[in-house]
């Protein structure tokens, strides 16, 4: 991941606990492109590496990256360092943007944001509404009006802003009871909200439900990638919610399997190109150079080329 060194060109308190930081190139150059849903990893002055969603819609040549950081008194110090140690003029190491929460085309959208989870959602909603899109509904759940960054931006007829201090827990069910294949649901917020949305969308298509991945359970982080099936060159999209094994099978490529938990090695494939994050407990380090266990391991490069085990390169295996 390439790293930038950016200067804080502006900062402002949006609420008593949320501060906005604008980051620009010290020489005024345009920054690497990004799309809504992207995040950057900032190294705080105290040395923490923290992921922050970019709150502006972005584009091809953004002039600045804007993040909003909520001070978390119970956290491990990353947000405190951003609040206490960063001022206008501070230079910070910042990664190039990465997008694990991309905005997919859809006839309609339902955004569900809890607290500081509004940050990627705001970028998406601003992008869509700037295009004049209708059918972009927002549920924005916070504790109180004073705790609500960007409150004034969500006062439209398609927006519901709910403050739990005044009105108690929000009932999501009326918004999710009827599954609609024409709606994509994007959710970002604290773990209990994400769990509630996951539970209440059990009868929806999984492909319509999008959860901000780094806020989610870390064991379930997965990004989409493309697999090329070496015997016939077929390109198979592996979405975040399917394993490589399931995606290949869905495309009619027969791969034998047994445990599907990365233990038995039955679904081992030849890895001919691309980088893989191995999650199995069966391959040796040497074998991992040329093999991938399809039920659990995923690509970290955008594309991998895989084939049946008999495609294993003899000079390497």
């Amino acid at each position: 991941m390439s790293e930038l060194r950016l200067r804080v060109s502006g900062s402002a308190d949006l609420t008593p606990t949320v501060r906005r930081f604008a980051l620009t190139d010290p020489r005024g150059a345009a920054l690497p492109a990004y799309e809504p849903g992207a995040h950057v990893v900032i190294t705080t002055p105290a040395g923490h590496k923290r992921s922050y969603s970019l709150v502006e819609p972005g584009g091809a040549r953004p002039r600045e990256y804007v993040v909003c950081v909520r001070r978390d008194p119970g956290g491990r110090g990353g947000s405190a360092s951003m609040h206490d140690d960063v001022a206008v003029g501070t230079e910070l190491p910042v990664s190039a943007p990465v997008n694990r929460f991309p905005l997919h085309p859809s006839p309609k959208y339902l955004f569900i944001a809890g607290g500081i989870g509004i940050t990627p959602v705001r970028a998406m909603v601003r992008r869509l509404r700037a295009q004049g899109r209708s059918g972009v509904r927002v549920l924005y759940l916070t504790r109180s009006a004073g705790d609500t960054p960007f409150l004034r931006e969500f006062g439209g007829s398609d927006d519901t802003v709910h403050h739990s201090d005044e009105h108690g827990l929000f009932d999501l069910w009326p918004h999710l009871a009827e599954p609609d294949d024409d709606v994509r649901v994007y959710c970002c917020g604290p773990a209990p909200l994400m769990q509630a949305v996951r539970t209440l969308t059990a009868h929806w298509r999984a492909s319509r439900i999008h959860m901000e991945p780094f806020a989610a359970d870390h064991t379930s982080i997965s990004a989409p990638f493309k697999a090329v099936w070496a015997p016939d060159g077929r390109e198979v999209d592996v979405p975040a919610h399917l394993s490589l094994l399931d995606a290949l099978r869905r495309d009619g490529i027969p791969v034998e399997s047994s445990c599907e938990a990365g233990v038995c090695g039955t679904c081992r494939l030849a890895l001919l190109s691309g980088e893989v994050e191995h999650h199995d407990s069966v391959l040796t380090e040497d074998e991992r150079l040329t093999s991938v266990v399809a039920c659990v391991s995923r690509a970290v490069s955008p594309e991998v080329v895989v084939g049946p085990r008999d495609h294993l390169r003899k000079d390497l295996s």
Partner: protein
Amino acid sequence: MRTAGVVRELFRYPVKGLSAQPLDQAVLEPGGGIPHDRTFAFARPDGGYRPGTRKGLSKQEFFALVSDHRLSGLDTSFDVETDVLVTRVAGHEVLEADLGTEEGIATALRFFARVLDLPAGVLPVLAREPGRRFTDASVAGDDSMNWVSVVNLASVRDLEARTGAAVDPKRFRANVLVDGLPAWSELDMIGEEFDLGGVRVRAVHQTKRCAATEVGPGAGRRDLPVVTLLNRTYGHQLMGIYVEVLTAGTVEKGAEVVV
């Protein structure tokens, strides 16, 4: 040596991959299984199942938890008297379908096509074959199709104690949960006969576990690497056994298990 345990819980799973249904008792026949256990399944439309298929098929031919963990997020109940399948999400009813009618089947298939996220126009196939059940063991033959699955709660507790993980025994989707026996003693019983709540049974097979056990009951996702935990802790992937029913009788919750 005579060891006494107890039948702690009884379950059937009328539809493969869907919710467990607790039972107070199960009426068993020699060579038979738990009544109404896995007598329905949703088959893959491009797979090996066709209506009238009279041989056991691999679990990969069906939609099941190992491949489709979201199914566990649905709370389903199937009334074996009326054939009505009711499905709830967080207590809210989202499907009521009479699987005894064409219309009800069509409604259920459309519902599960969405849950399973099948491409537009593709529906699963409702598999139901009189006298057959879609158990994982059915692939080995018609005798094994009726095997009753038994999990020893002491073994599950041993796994918990050694790994520090909370392991809900319902992950293993057994028909019978027994307690009071030494941990892992069931794996040494293969070939032996014993008394399961008044019914004579023979332990016939150790149960090798797959990733279906990683799916949390009710969770709708894989949330604990059970197969990996077993493998790292014991060097095997076993939990529970299958038994073959030898005599007729009624097993009740709370009945004694004599080994």
